[in-house]
């Protein structure tokens, strides 16, 4: 179990949230080449260390938010700014 620090609801069991995965800047669909778009869709950094990622608090505030987590130790850092919509999934 992970204790995920939701910016609105405080620490929550990760089972209460949906994991959104790595957060990357979304290319502009109007100008992106198919190659850029598919890289954004599929390719991942998958580091063993600090990772910027998105979570959805599905049984609490029902908002997407961005966090940093160390994927080797599962500690969280840098509580996000409330209302931060970056990296949310469509």
């Amino acid at each position: 179990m992970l204790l995920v620090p939701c910016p609105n609801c405080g620490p929550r069991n990760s089972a209460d949230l949906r994991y959104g995965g790595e957060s990357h800047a979304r290319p502009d669909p109007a100008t992106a080449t198919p190659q850029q778009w598919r890289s954004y869709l599929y390719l991942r950094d998958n580091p063993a260390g600090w990772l910027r990622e998105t979570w959805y608090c599905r049984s609490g505030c029902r908002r997407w938010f961005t966090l940093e987590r160390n994927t080797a130790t599962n500690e969280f850092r840098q509580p996000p700014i409330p209302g931060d919509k970056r990296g949310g999934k469509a």
Partner: protein
Amino acid sequence: MTGIGRRLRRRPPRYSAAALAWRGLRGDYWPRIWRDTELKRSYDAVVIGGGVHGLATAYYLARNHGITDVAVVDKAYLGSGASGRNTAIVRANYLTPEGVAFYDRSLKLYNSMALDLNINVMMSERGHLTLAHNDSSLRTMNWRAEVNKLQGVDSCVIGPDEISKIAPSLDTSSHPRYPILGALYHPPGGIVRHDAVVWGYARAADHMGVEMHQKTEVLDILCEGGDGPDGKGPGGKVVGVRTSRGDISTPVVVNCTAGWAGLISAMAGVRLPITTHPLQAAVTEPVKVFLPTVVVSGSLHVYISQTDRGELVFGAAVDAVATYSIRGSLEFTEELAGHVLELMPGISRMRLLRQWSGLCDMTPDYSPVMGFTPVDGFLVDVGWGTYGFKAAPVSGEQMAEAVATGRTPELIAPFALSRFEAGELVGEKGAAAVGH
């Protein structure tokens, strides 16, 4: 030790009942089944990862193509990753024609493995039941059965009556929350002793001159001519590997590192469509054999088999959160027990002996990533997610062919890294995973 090593060079010992009796009576030591050698400065090929995939690749390089100047390097011991942590199930009842042809070849290689490698891998073709608890699952089972039949793989959909004849311990009544409506029955599926497969490949490869280097961690992959920093990245080529025991020069590096595949590929400047998730499994105390087949339920996220020792082995879906940590969780055990008891209420008093987890390299389409990359001489055999063990022999065979000929073999062409750029995914989620 060196004396034993020299004797092993001259005459590889055959495993047989007569040899067992002879050595047992004489009280001899068995010779070590692979050598510990010094790391050379140069090899024709370096395989990173000493699991079944890496060892099979090295074995087939030596056996089918005569390339024996090969080093297999692993940061821990052979079979320390997913090769020793999987639930040892083999089957070929996949969903896509590409997947079925590929895994069917693997199953055939598993069938002849004991003779090929002269080691008892305890291959047990005990049959494989994939349960359907709703109409859409039943539809997928019918779909899989038809694709399988077309490819010459033995699969059929059966109803609850037949299921209870094959596996009477399953609750096939209409009482459970998710009653069993039918199942995809796949008689050639079964289980194999996974450690023996690792040792068999290592031993056979060693006899042909391949070197296994344990506790040798790869720190960097040396490239030149690429677009990125230090000559890495697309357009470049591999010139060597930096390990914790010194630099090796080599023109070919094969990445067979499963959960760590992304980290190794990043060393060559190649990005992969892979995230690393842990998968937890558990085993019960041993009891008399009562479960004759492998039982899988996608809806309940569980697969069950009974080992020859009598322990029930349980596997599940991967954990939802990507991480390199392999800590187990109580939620897993609770959920697993609930789901298993839904299927087999009769085992409620059994005790779990232990639980463990391994790392899975998950791809978006639940198919592997195999073959060449934009970096010349850097090949990948990764993205094996939750289905790597059953594919090890054929992956080794095909990867060895790719290394030796410089061309992608037809059987693995659909699994190339370039399919993601082209948008031609091979969707196997309906047959490869239980978590959907």
